[in-house]
């Protein structure tokens, strides 16, 4: 028992206590000074009936999730297949694809501001294939696609999970499929994909949770704009709590965020049984 006390102390102090306190605060008005004032369900009513920015932030986050999650999973899958072949210099390619996900943060967000300028690298590249790129960051239509594009640069973590799963597929399954006369495509669809479903499921859960926690890019690259087109729910929480100091109201946003993440995760585990294939020896 003594061994686990350090964690128990920090858990009670910085997790469980605040968790309970945030439920209480979400039913109050609290402005960081003075005492919290009980307002009942007012904060929640205001969230859903009188806060266009909140509704907008939820829609924006859903938009991001709907494009980012399938997009990054397909791209990472594709890259993992490429990297799983025996080629010279494999560690170099792997590093190139993986490194951006380790360095993701404020520094690379500023880098992308420059890359996404009207005459920046992204548009120069599009120009090579004859596309006249938009002014990404000042257009309320293109700002969100710009953030999604940027998110694909960070496919490394997902890709590594797929790569490990690919390497865990027993070779004899492919041999058996060949004997049955399966070609490349059918092997992919009937052997690779079913054997990868645990990894695909895992990354789907992680990426969806991650999408609801997008913050750094939205604050640094677009600061929620233009015209709230990249206002994510967490950015809305941050501004409400730490720029306007409406901490009771921000706690209500935090709780809605928590419930959303919880519901998405439970839903995914609920439908997982229908499509995820678990073999005894599969990792994890």
């Amino acid at each position, binding site marked *: *028992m003594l*061994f*686990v006390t*350090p*964690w128990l*102390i*920090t*858990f009670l*102090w*910085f*997790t469980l*206590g*605040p*968790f309970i*306190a*945030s439920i209480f605060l979400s039913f109050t008005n609290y402005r*960081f000074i003075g005492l919290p004032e009980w307002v009942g369900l007012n904060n929640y009513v205001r969230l859903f009936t009188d806060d266009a920015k909140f509704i907008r932030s939820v829609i924006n986050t859903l938009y991001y999730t709907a494009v980012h999650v399938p997009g990054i999973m397909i791209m990472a899958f594709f890259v993992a297949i*490429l*990297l799983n*072949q025996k*080629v010279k210099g494999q*560690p170099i*390619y792997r590093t*190139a*694809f993986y*490194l*951006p996900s*380790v*360095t*993701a*943060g*404020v*520094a*690379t967000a*500023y*880098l*992308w501001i*420059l*890359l996404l300028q009207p005459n920046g*690298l992204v548009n120069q590249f599009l120009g090579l294939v004859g596309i006249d790129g938009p002014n990404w960051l000042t257009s309320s239509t293109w700002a969100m696609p710009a953030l999604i594009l940027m998110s694909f640069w960070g496919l490394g*973590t997902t890709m*590594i*999970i797929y790569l*490990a799963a690919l390497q865990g597929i027993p070779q004899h399954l492919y041999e058996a499929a060949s004997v049955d006369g399966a070609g490349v495509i059918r092997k992919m669809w009937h052997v690779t994909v079913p054997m990868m479903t645990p990894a695909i499921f*895992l990354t789907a859960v*992680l990426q969806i*949770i*991650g999408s609801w*926690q997008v*913050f*750094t890019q939205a604050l*640094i690259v677009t600061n929620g704009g233009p015209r709230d087109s990249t206002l994510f729910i967490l950015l809305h929480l941050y501004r409400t*709590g*730490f720029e306007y100091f409406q901490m009771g109201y921000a*706690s209500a946003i*935090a*709780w809605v965020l*928590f419930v959303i*993440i*919880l519901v998405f995760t439970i839903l995914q585990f609920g439908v997982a049984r229908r499509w995820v294939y678990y073999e005894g020896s599969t990792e994890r």
Partner: protein
Amino acid sequence: MRSTSVRVLRALTRALFYLLLIGGSIMYAIPFIYMVRWSFMTTSQVYDPDLFWPFPPAWENYTYVWQHHPVPWWLFNSFIVTFIGVTVGTFVSCVVAYGFARLEFPGNRVIFMVLLSTMMLPLHVTIIPVVIIFRDLGWLDTLWPLIVPGLGGGAFYIFILRQFFMTIPIELDEAARTDGASRLGILFRVILPLSRPAIATVAALAFIGNWNDFFLPLIVLNSPDRITLPVGLRYFAAGQYMEQQHTLQMAVAMISVMPIIVVFFFAQRQFVRGITLTGIKG
């Protein structure tokens, strides 16, 4: 006839494969190359469309930000937080994980389930009361909020280490005990030496987590010489110092990214293994 067309097709597939692999790698590396390039340019060179690589490199960008901005402080603060997070955080995580893996005490299972469920609870949900606690402790605008919560070990790290400790045969513990080793003795002389790969993985994840941390430092830190590098970068670009020069900004970005890249190249295996063993994003 047929065999030549098959061979041509195969060669074409091979060529396409390398094109995708090499082309893709270059595309993923180019943003970094641009970061280096800009950090070594003078302001006028940025607007010269014919110049790709600046020669000689403008080292003065680095010396300028180092001397005219609190960059040394930012680096120092980031270093302190990361150093304590990696050393103490990893060590305490080992001790706690050992408790969960090997010791029978009432509520062991239940507390471990609680630990697992905290991994589902992002800091963002509890951030408001957490910041109020820091305020009441007088910790706002100090490094304590970034250090103290991690001193009890991180839930992810404890989970990884506990899973690894469970794979070590219990007979080794028993042998050590008959030789008169205490519980701590078993941890230090049996478990830890056998767990180097898992410990290295946790240390690598803790390094990245602490070094890249932005949300909490952004909220609790304020004074220009008390912030960490990621927050400092923001001050810099926000025109706080009356400058918006890309070159200086990219020099600071380089200073903040370089340690990660260096650590990554030394501990590449640990990163990859950390992700594949646990499936948890660092």
